């Protein structure tokens, strides 16, 4: 009788790549729900539309590369990419914007490098930055949150997607934009002037961030990724903000709380910089990776041209990640320097 020759180990743990990806998808849910509550169903529609485009795009890439599509399509990674991209996009983006972004993500960000596992840059952020650079106008048009403007219904959202320019909702600068644009104002004046700035970080935004954080913590608890990168980033961002914050002069860059809870901070900390493929490898490396993202995020937000700098900070660090890996190995068993008293 002949048996199969398979290498050890012969058993296997419970997790598969597809499940990892599903977990991440699931964890975005609370954030997306709150986004929908404050800004209407635009993001949701984008996610659905973008997911379909992404699957088609992944299929086409695999076909071009002469690969069996089924195993790759069923790993859900392209859905994570498209979902994360769509969450980052403005809610009522036209279809061509979403499509261009997905194309950039999946082809330029992922498949020219060989697909899942080989891409050195975060595909979703590649897509986002390509759009931000190419179509800054469309990319800086944000819906006003519930309470300040009318939240569009489902019909409006579909119209906005399919007939570019037809939907004309109430748009409004995001709190980070405001901070960036009103360098001359005292923070107090800014809060007094702009209705979207409320106690912490702006109507809607603070809740969106808190929900993304909750989702992220749930995933860490589930063991899909470690705490290092998010903690590194949030701590560094907090430190920088604390150092730059002088309780509200016109030079002030916003309080730590403001930075933590505005824009894409939590979304980025728990869903973007945790992308394992394009990030640093070891836990030490991830801590450093996160901290440097936090530093750049603060610098670019406050001093640069891009009010929400997350995508740039992430891409820059993606570029540096292989180098970081070279110098952040953990101490292997048996390589711990021997202490004298151990003799």
């Amino acid at each position, binding site marked *: 009788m002949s048996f199969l020759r398979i290498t050890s180990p012969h058993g296997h743990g419970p997790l598969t790549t597809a499940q990892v990806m599903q977990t991440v998808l699931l964890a975005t849910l609370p954030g997306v729900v709150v986004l929908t509550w404050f800004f209407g169903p635009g993001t949701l529609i984008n996610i659905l539309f973008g997911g379909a485009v992404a699957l088609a795009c992944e299929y086409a890439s695999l076909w071009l590369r002469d690969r069996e599509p089924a195993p790759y399509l069923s790993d859900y990674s392209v859905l994570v990419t498209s979902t994360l991209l769509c969450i980052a996009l403005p809610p009522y983006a036209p279809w*061509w914007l979403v499509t*261009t972004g997905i194309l950039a993500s999946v082809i*330029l960000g992922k498949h*020219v490098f060989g697909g899942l596992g080989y891409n050195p840059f975060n595909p979703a952020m590649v897509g986002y930055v*390509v759009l931000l*650079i*190419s*179509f*800054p106008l*469309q990319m800086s048009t944000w819906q006003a949150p519930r309470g300040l403007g009318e939240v569009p219904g489902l019909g409006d959202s579909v119209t906005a997607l399919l007939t570019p320019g037809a939907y004309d909702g109430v748009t409004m600068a995001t709190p980070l934009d405001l901070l960036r644009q009103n360098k001359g104002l005292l923070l107090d004046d800014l809060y007094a002037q702009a209705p979207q700035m409320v106690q912490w970080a702006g109507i809607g935004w603070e809740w969106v961030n808190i929900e993304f954080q909750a989702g992220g913590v749930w995933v860490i608890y589930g063991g899909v990724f470690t705490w290092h990168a998010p903690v590194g980033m949030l701590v560094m961002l907090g430190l920088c903000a604390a150092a730059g914050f002088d309780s509200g002069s016109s030079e002030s860059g916003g309080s730590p709380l403001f930075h933590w809870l505005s824009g894409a901070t939590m979304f980025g900390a728990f869903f973007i910089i945790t992308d394992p493929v394009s990030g640093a490898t070891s836990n030490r490396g991830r801590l450093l990776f996160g901290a440097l993202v936090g530093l750049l995020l603060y610098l670019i937000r406050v001093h640069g041209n891009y009010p929400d700098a997350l995508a740039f900070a992430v891409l820059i660090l993606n570029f540096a990640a292989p180098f970081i890996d070279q110098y952040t190995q953990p101490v292997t068993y048996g390589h711990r320097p021997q202490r004298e008293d151990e003799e």
Partner: protein
Amino acid sequence: MTTPSYATLTHNGLWKNNPALVQLLGLCPLLAVSASVVNSLGLAAATLFVLVSSNLCVSLVRNVVSETIRLPVFVMIIAAAVTAIELLMQAYTYELYQILGIFLPLITTNCIILGRADAFAAKNPLLPSLYDGFIMGVGFGAVLVVLGAIRELLGTGGLFANMQLLFGESARNWHFVISEDYPALLLAILPPGAFIVTGFLIAAKNAADNAAKRRAEAARAPVVAGAKRVRVTGKIS
């Protein structure tokens, strides 16, 4: 070294050994200046001029200069040619001169030029050297212009804008726009776009080459294995 035939030179310059796509030389001007067709054409012309004239001079003096001072002499010849064209462009196409900016004097350090001077013109007679300079320049220029066209088209939705800078006022209306409400993909004309479009161009060339190679593979004669072996241990008595 025997002088290759003109057909070989042409194939080398335009495709097989294309300076921009294969040798990856002269990348800086290639990427920096190729945001539009007119810029590309301007630089292509200047590069072509320098290549041809430096190859010409180098081939002329190749038997006079000794090995030791070869490179400095070549560099000086190139620098003189570049300065000349720089001055000329400054005098007669000033706006283009301003657009090309420091990339015009930087032709001096375009590795293609020194490379061709050293690898070809220094070893070959006048006419082939002239032709080599010309065809390499054309090969480089072709890539430059194609790159410029792709980027201009993607980035602005139009083609041949501002051609008057090179061809006089009558060229102003050569500009045409594909569609008025094309949402311009600005990325293409910004710096990163240059890299990315070039990457895709190189990939396209590779794909074409691979296809050709696969076709040729069938017809290839087998090599004799071990044909080059020598005896290590000398004569066995």
